[in-house]
């Protein structure tokens, strides 16, 4: 359904845009309907950038993103984008900033109606809203007409999802939808995503929290400095992390029932070399991925800047 093919993104940064920042390098993966792909990585690894590119909010520097055969970069004009958004929607990290604070929260619905369903009658529209609110398990009476600050983060996040559902979408880009939420509400939103997946929706789930990534996703893509370090079926990546970077991330996750020391000990033994080039280390860190087991790819441990690979010095 959604296909990324050697996608890269270069930002011009520095005082006068003279310097270039490779935020995303040669990233390729696929999201199928009814599948959750977790995009995992440290802060700044390019997760949101990928999300924005998929949503057409940021231009693509290289490679191609295709959604059901259409080239996202090739969308021209307002109309084409509008049609694209009928099928692809996004939910962002910060529920509080996703709402225009000066308007009631349900304005997000009104916008959809104004742009996509101007012909739908008042009563019918209300019915649809209530229905989609119920899907996300919100009580319409409790949330409609309220201002964003009167609602909790979890409620807001769910309103955003409900909004996307109004459009009968095929793909949802969920960018860190849970990181701002309390532990107790987090799980509700995660469960909701799982439910949507069950309804056949494809979800690109962006997160930096590995434990959460594992909970709902089918495929995990680990990003490091804009490039894929490792990708594959979620359970394989989590139980058999091959890239030093993945291993380090995993070992740092605080777990309730294991101390860090225990977790370190439990990780499958690491031979201390590059998963692609071995202990000697000769690769330059370019994004050539090697398939180590069915669907499980891993990249070179090079520093990603063209330097030769060696075990991650920071580990």
């Amino acid at each position, binding site marked *: 359904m959604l296909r990324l093919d050697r996608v890269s993104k270069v930002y011009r940064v520095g*005082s006068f845009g003279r310097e270039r920042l490779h935020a995303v390098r040669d990233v390729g993966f696929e999201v199928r309907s009814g599948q959750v792909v977790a995009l995992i990585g440290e802060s700044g690894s390019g997760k949101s950038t990928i999300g924005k590119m998929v949503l057409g909010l940021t231009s693509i520097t290289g490679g191609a993103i295709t959604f059901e055969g259409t080239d996202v970069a090739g969308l021209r004009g307002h109309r084409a984008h509008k049609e694209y958004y009928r099928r692809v929607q996004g939910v962002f990290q910060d529920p509080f900033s996703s709402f225009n604070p000066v308007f009631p929260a349900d304005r997000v619905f009104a916008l959809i109606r104004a742009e996509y369903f101007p012909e739908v009658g008042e009563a019918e529209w209300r019915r649809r809203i209530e229905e989609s609110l119920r899907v996300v398990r919100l009580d319409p009476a409790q949330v409609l007409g309220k201002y964003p600050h009167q609602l909790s983060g979890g409620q807001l996040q769910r309103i955003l999802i409900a909004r996307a559902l109004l459009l009968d979408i095929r793909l949802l880009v969920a960018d860190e939808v849970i990181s701002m939420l309390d532990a107790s509400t987090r799980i509700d939103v995660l469960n909701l995503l799982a439910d949507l997946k069950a309804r056949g929706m494809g979800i690109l789930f962006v997160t930096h929290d590995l434990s959460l990534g594992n909970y709902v996703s089918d495929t995990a893509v680990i990003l490091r400095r804009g490039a894929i370090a490792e990708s594959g079926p979620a359970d394989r990546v989590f139980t058999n992390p091959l890239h030093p970077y993945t291993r380090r991330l995993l070992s740092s996750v605080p777990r309730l029932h294991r101390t860090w020391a225990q977790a370190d000990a439990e990780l499958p033994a690491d031979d201390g070399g590059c998963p692609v080039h071995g202990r000697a280390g000769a690769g330059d860190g370019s994004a050539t991925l090697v398939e180590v087991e069915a669907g499980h790819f891993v990249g070179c441990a090079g520093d990603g800047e063209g330097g030769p690979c060696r075990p991650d010095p920071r580990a």
Partner: protein
Amino acid sequence: MWRYFGRKLFVYALTFFVAVTINWMIPRFMPGDPVRSMLARASVGNAEALEAMRAYYSSLFGLDLPVWQQYLNFWGSLLRGDLGTSVWLFPTPVSEVILGAVPYTLGLLVPAILLSWIAGNKFGAFAARGRWLDNTVLPVGYLLTATPYMWLGILLAWSLGIVAGIFPTAGAYGFALQPSLSWAFVSSLVLHWFLPFLSLFLVAFGGWAIGMRNMIIYELEADYSSYLEALGAPRRLVRRYAFRNALLPQLTGLALQLGTIVAGALLTEIVFSYPGLGNLILEALNNRDFFLLQGAFLFIVLGVLIANFVIDVVYVLVDPRVRVQMQGGAA
């Protein structure tokens, strides 16, 4: 860093170019002929004689050339530092006329700007968050900045000059005196300078005080202030840091306000018949002296641009944040 300054310089150069062009354009596309205006004051009763003179002076001023050539010549002579000849004060070169007036204007402006900036900032910082001061001094500060420069000048001239007779209200120094380093001359110079200075100072002072007061409140609430306070640092230290940091935006403010203050100085000079650029501009206006007007305009623009650039440089020197960013350091 050099790239930063290079770019700044480019903007300034562009600004200068635009200013010069506007400046050159306006009189040429407006009605009236400067030479005619000049000669209108010549008591030449005879039309033929006048026509002959007009032709002569037009070619002297280069006004009989094609427009594009006038424009090029304008730049040419400008780059040679030649601003043309004043029509009104014929045949003094404009640059000479301006240079004669500039010391007076600078003498007013520089102390007024610097002192008001320093005093205003100190005072604003002092008043901030003091309940009583904040509530009484703040409105006064605002009223001061809202005062038209010339009106304050008029009030001062009238009250302290005419009614009380303490200060003279016209000229730069006593008419009986010749410039010298004598006590009589210097005291006269200072006496004449004081009121125009004061009116500029007061208005600007109000602005800076308020600006600082507003800035420092934000600084006092900044994270580093809270951290210092949590570690029990005395208020003195916190305020000192806040003051220094609040001063930086005030420096930018200074750059922004320069044009305004200069304009204020012009008006003040007019009120006090102070022989600076302000009076020059007024007379140039009244006498249709395009060349002088253009010269004065260019001079002021150049002055403001240079001052802005200096402030830019100073800013970069005193604010490590900007400096580091420009060196492409860590963000």
